[in-house]
């Protein structure tokens, strides 16, 4: 099997990954680019723990081949903001959303795309956008509250959504 060279921008930095072209982006990000914030949960696009942004879209990196990142922009939880202060991160901290915390990289990355597209989401909008992200600790009531809170911060002129780094 030939190795492939994938050149992409990860969290604003140009990177070249020497990888098996079949490797899912998740494992390339975790074990080759060594960014551990994006999580493995199921490997079959069921749980959303691996959600990151590929050209601004939320994708399940566990079922996305690394080669799809060629020439593209990848943003992971580590690159969502420089100082852990994206409105969603601030809202997550204010409301103390995480328990074990394992799924929340994916939760926040999914929510970031929702808020960019829809700065004033209803509960139904949140259900649709976040239905693919499992939280076994059951922090869902707080996820909902935090997304509304972040939307409120954005509307009142908070930090701009930094997902298109």
């Amino acid at each position, binding site marked *: 099997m030939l190795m492939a060279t994938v050149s992409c921008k990860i969290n604003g930095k140009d990177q070249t990954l020497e990888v098996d072209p079949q490797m899912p982006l998740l494992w390339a990000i975790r074990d080759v680019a060594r960014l551990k914030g994006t999580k493995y949960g199921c490997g079959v696009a069921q749980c959303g723990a691996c959600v990151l942004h590929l050209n601004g879209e939320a994708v399940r990196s566990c079922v996305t081949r690394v080669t799809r990142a060629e020439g593209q922009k990848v943003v992971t939880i580590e690159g969502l903001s420089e100082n852990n202060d994206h409105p969603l991160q601030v809202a997550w901290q204010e409301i103390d959303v*995480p328990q*074990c915390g394992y799924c929340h990289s994916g939760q926040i990355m999914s929510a970031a795309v929702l808020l960019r597209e829809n700065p004033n989401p209803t509960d139904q909008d949140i259900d649709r956008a976040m239905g693919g992200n499992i939280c076994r600790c059951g922090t869902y009531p707080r996820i909902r509250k935090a997304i509304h809170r972040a939307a409120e911060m954005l509307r009142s002129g908070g930090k701009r959504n930094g997902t298109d780094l």
Partner: protein
Amino acid sequence: MGGAMLSLGFYVPSAGKEATIVKTTEAEGFGVELNAWIHIDTSGKVTIFSHRAEMGQGVYQAIPQIIAEELEVNLDEVNIVFAKGDNKKYGNQVTGGSSSVRTTYKNLLKLSATAREMLMEAAANRWKVSRAECYAESGHVFHKPSKRKYHYGELVLDASKLQAPEQVTLKKRSEYKLIGKPLRRQDTRMKTNGTAIFGLDKEIPGMLYAVVERNPRLRGVVKSVDDTDALKVPGVKRVVKVRMGVFSTYREGVAVVADSAWQAMQGRKALRVTWDDTGFEHQNTEQIFRRQADELKNNEGLSFKTQGDVNAILNGASDKIDVVYQTPYQQHACMEPLNCVAHWQGDKVEIWGPIQAPDWVQDYISKEMNLPRENVIVNMTFLGGGFGRKAFMDYPHEAVVISKVIGAPVQVVWTREDDMTQGPYRPGISYRCEGVVTNGEISAFKVKMAGQNNDHWRGGPKDKPNRSTSEGLLKPYFDSIKNLSIQDIPFETPIPTMWWRSVYASTNGFAYESFLDELAVAAGKDPLEFRRSYLKDERAQKLIDRMQEVSGWKKRKKGDGFGVAITECFNSTVGQVVKVSKQPSGGVKIDRVWAVMDCGWYVNPDTIKAQVEGSIVMALGAATMHEIRFEDGLTVQKNFYAYPMPRIYDIPPIEVYIMENDADAGGVGEPGLPAFAPALTNAIFDLTGKRIRKLPFDLNTVSS
């Protein structure tokens, strides 16, 4: 931890005795073993060694919040470090039974107050003033009359030369500045930007990755391995046979070791393993529950509690209630699949992982690998969920075995499918509940349980009833129900079982609280007032008052879809009221859940609310969405598509209330779970007249 510092710990001389606090330097001389240490260095920085695992339940917040209160330091100046596994030093470290706060808070308060008193004494000595003229606040000692002050860091050297006082005065609850406040968790920021290190995120230099093909029937041995194709997969280094402990039995597997986890997974796909699956029964779920039904129908069990003469009343009754409740096998499904890093170094091994019981791992590996305990170093990372599964030795064991064989550090990575199909599971249990109501009162109450006993897997006696046979049922019922019999019928299968959040209360609670509801209906009584009449206990009475108040219980009408349940778990009692309504499509919708927690003395009300919310979500899944089933000895459910989890759109509004009293602290992480399923099914009965006696059931079709 070198250099000048004040370093204190406590040890408990013997069971039931009060802890003694000593300086860590003295401890060595005494030859005593200290629990939980506090260090304060010359910069004033406070470091606490948390001997318990953080798996979401909030111990990472709760322990510093307790210590900062009596030590008089700012919470953000307290640095918390996970202690290594060592029960000689820290006592029991098994993070289970919702025990971290309730079993240590009194000692932690005393330890912190002792350190504060020593620092104050050091300051008073230096100023040559009376200790009474000094006070401590925000990491400083102040001399009130002269307004002079010292930072703790300036005092630690002097303080470390003083004797620890034998008696210290602890604050009254009304004086607390931190305890009892909904302070933000110290670990949240790490969990919003990907910097929290979970087991799977741990890397050490030179580390390889392994995935393991394990016997899909949970037992049995490898007959043959053809690794020809596996070894051709790029990145694959080795294929090794591995045997890991499953309690007192062993499971075999074949490990593929590679440069990356994904390459190891590819190598595994190319493996050809044949198994010898003889010598144990291949289970089917249908057959397990049929056997339980037969046992319950035909046999009496071991007596857990017997009072009065239940059988005489049952035999003489013309209209007894005689029903069977059934709860399924469940899997923990932590979001972080199992994994563990081990580095074998000849005469010692170091382990890192999401581990609930580091001291057990230390003991177990020491025994299995024939190493002295002190040469087994066990480090806890953050846990991406635990729920009981990560208090188990199989995954550290296999990591150690593989590292030893390959002579390199290795991380074993379990796929979701491995995690879901290998157990151990919450046991599936059936309950036969027989009762008689005479003149509106319970005249006979008999519950027989048939299901696997987790203790048997850990070497517990088989001639004694399950010690958790009544777990979940409030103890005052034992005083108020005169004719009562609670029994356990021993039941075995080859399927390994283990604690699952709230353990037997999670299944017992459904049986006991549904049965009590049936008895209330038979008595023609309001189900909550019916329970009240049997719970002659001040705390329970107040809990019921609060449940009625917050849920508008008394304003409801019969048939409105209200249900109630009250369960006890790990020294806390939780009452829940669930309101349901019919959906146009024929199903039932959960409109709201009200939960009232009585856990006595508590640290952080927001953590408690979060734990109860999460427990209810987990209970919703177990009651209405998923179960583990077996066919021909194989686990049927392999991933979330077959074991569906609650999603954000499934969650009803949940209101959580906490009782205020000065009782001793109870558990928090688990007790919110057991009452939900029976409160829900009791609500469905109120709405539809349909009694649900088997979990899980489908909310979408239940009323049709």
